[in-house]
């Protein structure tokens, strides 16, 4: 490899240009000529390589720019409008939202009362609103029980985000257990069997069934 024979001969300038290109690309911060020289094989001339590289990128979508006494790749200023998506700030969903989402996914179609029953706490208005707004949850059919409560189901966008082909592909409790996500501590009072069919049966019936 180039590093070996460099004792005697520096790599050709085209090769040096490739090296500078790769280093600047991968570096998290602008890199000085001295730092380049340190990292490249002995005898290289990073300043010259930089000059070639800069010319190569003239007029391209990214440009080689000088930042203080260091160098970095930057998006061409006229294309800044394309970068809007890069400024997206990602935040983790709240625990309440995640839990609610999980219950909708596993128990759909599910009513608000059932979600509260399973979580054991009242559902704040903002939680479901957030999931609706994210388009991960939508309204399903009304339940044909007194009061005809609305139900919630998950959306295609939900499946896309979580890389699932269908809600039926959600791992069941036994899979969670096998993957180490669930303690295999048996549930008390003969519920051990009931939890295996968790994907299908609504949770609250299990709590009281024989």
């Amino acid at each position, binding site marked *: 490899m180039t590093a070996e024979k460099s004792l005697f001969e520096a790599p050709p300038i085209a090769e040096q240009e490739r090296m500078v290109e790769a280093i600047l690309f991968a570096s998290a911060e602008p890199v000085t000529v001295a730092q380049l020289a340190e990292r490249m094989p002995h005898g290289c001339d990073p300043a010259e390589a930089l000059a070639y590289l800069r010319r190569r990128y003239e007029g391209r979508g990214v440009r080689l720019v000088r930042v203080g006494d260091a160098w970095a790749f930057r998006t061409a200023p006229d294309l800044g409008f394309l970068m809007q998506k890069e400024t*997206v700030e990602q935040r983790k969903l709240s625990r309440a939202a995640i*839990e609610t989402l999980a219950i909708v996914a596993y128990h759909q179609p599910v009513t608000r009362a059932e979600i509260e029953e399973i979580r054991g706490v009242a559902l704040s208005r903002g939680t479901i609103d957030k999931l609706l707004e994210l388009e991960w949850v939508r309204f399903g059919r009304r339940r044909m029980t007194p009061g005809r409560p609305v139900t919630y189901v998950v959306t295609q966008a939900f499946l896309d985000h979580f890389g699932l082909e269908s809600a039926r592909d959600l791992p069941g*409790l036994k899979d969670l257990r096998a993957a180490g996500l669930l303690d295999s501590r048996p549930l008390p009072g003969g519920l051990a069997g009931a939890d295996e069919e968790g994907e299908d049966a609504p*949770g609250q019936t299990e709590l009281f*069934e024989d």
Partner: protein
Amino acid sequence: MAEPDLFEAASVSDRLQAEALIVDVDGFEGPLDLLLTLSRSQKVDLRRISVLQLAEQYLRFVEQAKALRIELAADYLVMAAWLAFLKSRLLLPPDPTEAGPSAEDMAAHLAFQLERLQAMREAAARLMARDRLGRDIFARGVSEEVMRVRRVTWTASLLDLMQAYARIRTRDEFRPYAFDRVNVYTMEQALERLRDLIGFAGDWSDIASFLPEGWCADPARRRSATAATFAAALELAKQGQIELRQSETFAPIALRRRDG
């Protein structure tokens, strides 16, 4: 069986190797892995392996482990039993009346399994030897920080989702007690009912006969009513109003009014 094998190996180094194999039994990822290692001593293509010879090598391995008082996990012993069975089937002439796969089919399948495991090992090695991101190949060091629009997206991974669900489902046994008013018969109700009824219970009567109407069909409701009635009966016995009797453990409990 004239061929030299691992445990009759003449040279010292071979013998040391054999012992190392025994002592290192924990280093094997199960019986199939061990069989694959043993098969290497045959120095032939896995397709031409002698399964009979391999079975003998394995059985000898197990015997040696026993002699050295090394505990083998159950699956090694299951494999040993199966190989002993296979070996006897391979040595005996086929029994035409016996149903099921022939010894040759079984041997061929074992050879297939070994070959497949070996192939996966090699594939894994080739995979891990590839130029890898973060080691040989690198992504952009900085994502562009053009901050024009700050849009917040909310994210969660499938793992978060599953962990949340697992958390909820395992929390069930610890959740705050939610009172079920429809299907729970309280001790106060049971006390009231018993007090009204014991006037008629001059003779021993099964406690079950005191259950309220409409609480016997549904198991959950019956259970609740039974528990409440039993507790109420204990309370009344404590107050000296009734007597309780049970002939043996789990036998029906009977009560009667206590006179005087």
